[in-house]
């Protein structure tokens, strides 16, 4: 099973090589950080790194949901649109139901969107790509309809703004802390709970999971519901950070999320994956954006650089996996 046994014979050098190859995303991130630090004196500063982390909290939450979805053998394109719907609904209801009521409403909206995704896939037998493409369009349309196309200013209490957007605890932005906790929880759920292992199993071998007696369809709906809730939570962070519900918010976030998951080594075929490595993938993307901005690279050529970096990163991750599925 462990195909890496033979490399032990090559001694320390082989060991390091093996480590690097098996953690391509981590190696890539380290290389990126080293190069960026050499290129810009502003890069490796506490302020800058925490800024990047805060900028990517929203995509990060969607990427966590996507990690579960992709491991279960599916895909979800609706994250960015659910974020926008959540932000718009949140801004709309905030003056009427108070901060806790608002958070609850928003999370319920996300859960419903996610559950509908799961229902379309399991009961409607619609391929996940199409079902969630539909949800992406529907949620975006709802956001635009509810807001009448306008950006809705939200009058939010200071406590909410603190935890979801602008607060600091020491040097750490409060939203970064909250999302870090979500990342840790998700990592534990995926690796150390029965539910997490079931998610891996249905992605690895749905028929086997069914014969083992698992309710594959219900698990699938649960996975998409979790993704919906996390995407809606991302909407809360949008509200906290910017103080407005923007119906065009979160466009392409799902694609950045998918890229983060795949750079983190989770294959589209599902079955295996890791939440911490999704975080590493997220940082590869986030720091790429950041360093290009810090270097004042022409905005038009930035896109080329980003595209190349994503493709190269995924290429290396996939090459590692081609030597056999290896469970982390």
């Amino acid at each position, binding site marked *: 099973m462990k195909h890496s046994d033979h490399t032990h014979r090559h001694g320390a050098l082989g060991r390091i090589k093996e480590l690097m190859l098996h953690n391509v995303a981590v190696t890539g991130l380290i290389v990126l950080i080293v190069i960026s630090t050499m290129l810009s004196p*502003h890069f490796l500063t506490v302020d800058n790194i925490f800024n990047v982390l805060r900028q990517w909290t929203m995509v990060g939450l969607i990427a966590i949901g996507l990690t579960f979805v992709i491991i279960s053998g599916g895909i979800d394109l609706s994250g960015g649109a659910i974020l926008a719907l959540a932000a718009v609904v949140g801004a709309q209801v905030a003056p009427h139901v108070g901060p806790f009521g608002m958070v609850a409403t928003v999370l319920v909206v996300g859960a419903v969107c996610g559950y509908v995704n799961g229902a379309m896939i399991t009961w409607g037998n619609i391929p996940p790509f199409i079902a969630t493409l539909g949800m992406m369009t529907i949620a975006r349309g709802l956001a635009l309809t509810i807001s009448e*196309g306008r950006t809705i200013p939200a009058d939010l209490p200071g406590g909410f703004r603190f935890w979801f957007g602008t607060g600091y605890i020491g040097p750490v932005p409060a939203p970064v802390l909250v999302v870090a906790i979500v990342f840790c929880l998700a990592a534990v759920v995926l690796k150390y709970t029965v539910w997490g292992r079931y998610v891996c199993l249905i992605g690895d071998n749905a028929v086997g999971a069914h014969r083992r007696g698992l309710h594959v369809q219900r698990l699938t709906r649960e996975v998409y519901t979790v993704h919906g809730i996390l995407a809606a939570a991302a909407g809360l962070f*949008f509200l906290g950070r*910017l103080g407005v519900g923007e119906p065009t918010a979160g466009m392409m976030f799902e694609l950045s999320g998918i890229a983060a998951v795949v750079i983190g080594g989770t294959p589209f075929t599902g079955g295996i994956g890791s939440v911490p490595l999704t975080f590493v993938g997220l940082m590869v993307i986030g720091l790429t*954006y950041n360093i290009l*901005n*810090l*270097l004042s690279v022409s*905005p038009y050529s930035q896109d080329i650089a980003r595209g190349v970096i994503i493709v190269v990163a995924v290429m290396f991750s996939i090459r590692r996996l081609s030597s056999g599925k290896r469970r982390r």
Partner: protein
Amino acid sequence: MNRTFKKLAAGLAACAMASLFATGASAADKVTIGLVQPNVEHPYRVAGVERAKAWAAQHPNVELIVVDGRRDSAVQMAAVEDLIQRGVDIIVMSPNDSKALTPVAETAKRAKIPLVIFDRKLAVDPSDYAAYVGAADIEMGRSAARFLAEKIGDKGTVIQLEGTPGASATLDRKKGFEEEMARHPQIKVVSYVGNYKLSDAVAVMEDAATAHRGFAAVYGHNDSMATGAAKVVKERNLGDVPIIGIDGGKEACEGIASGALAASIYYPTMFPEALDVAMKVLDKESVPKDTILETPVLTRENLAQYCK
């Protein structure tokens, strides 16, 4: 084969009918105006549609059909063709893309439906449309540059937050600004893309403020991005940095009143002016080919005049 022919025949018949209606119309009768927007969710477009509808409410003889191009040239093209099929009397359009929508002129001409272009230009011969109503984006860029250059005393780094790459407004607002700034050699302009969006502007502005500490001013291609920049400046206590936006809508009015923004260049929504021009065209009155509306600098001093 047969079906294609039938479709073609139906299309031709509809065109013929449309042209019958079109030639018979005058502003005194009931007229139908097709208003084609490239999108209807951007604040600028929303405001334009609202003002157009308010105008239509005062003109009971006008039926206004608002059509959404959904930020997609192909979708907008199809929408215009549908309008022609429905036999509107005149089309008032802002193309999603100046070049991609050029076939519209030909189609409208064949159906004998006059075409009034507003805001973004259509890259066809001026004889192919009835009139153009717009404002000069290049000039707005120049005004912004002049304003900031004076504010910061001719030296320092100015951060430019650009709109969606490739859009003609973006290109012109950038061109006018950079041309004017080139005359101030002590001023350095650095550019970031904010896609005309608040959230994107906040993200790039954080990076920009990190990379260019002590920058002197910010120029946003619209007010949403200028507002985003103001948010970052305030959060980081960067002091009194002059920030200027473009559009002069609600965001600008609030921002200038609160002191977050120094100024905004007022960009007219083109309504009701474009519709007035359209009515004149229908009445066979002579109209100038290009109507260029004014774009004054909006500051604390003249706020009351433009903000209602």
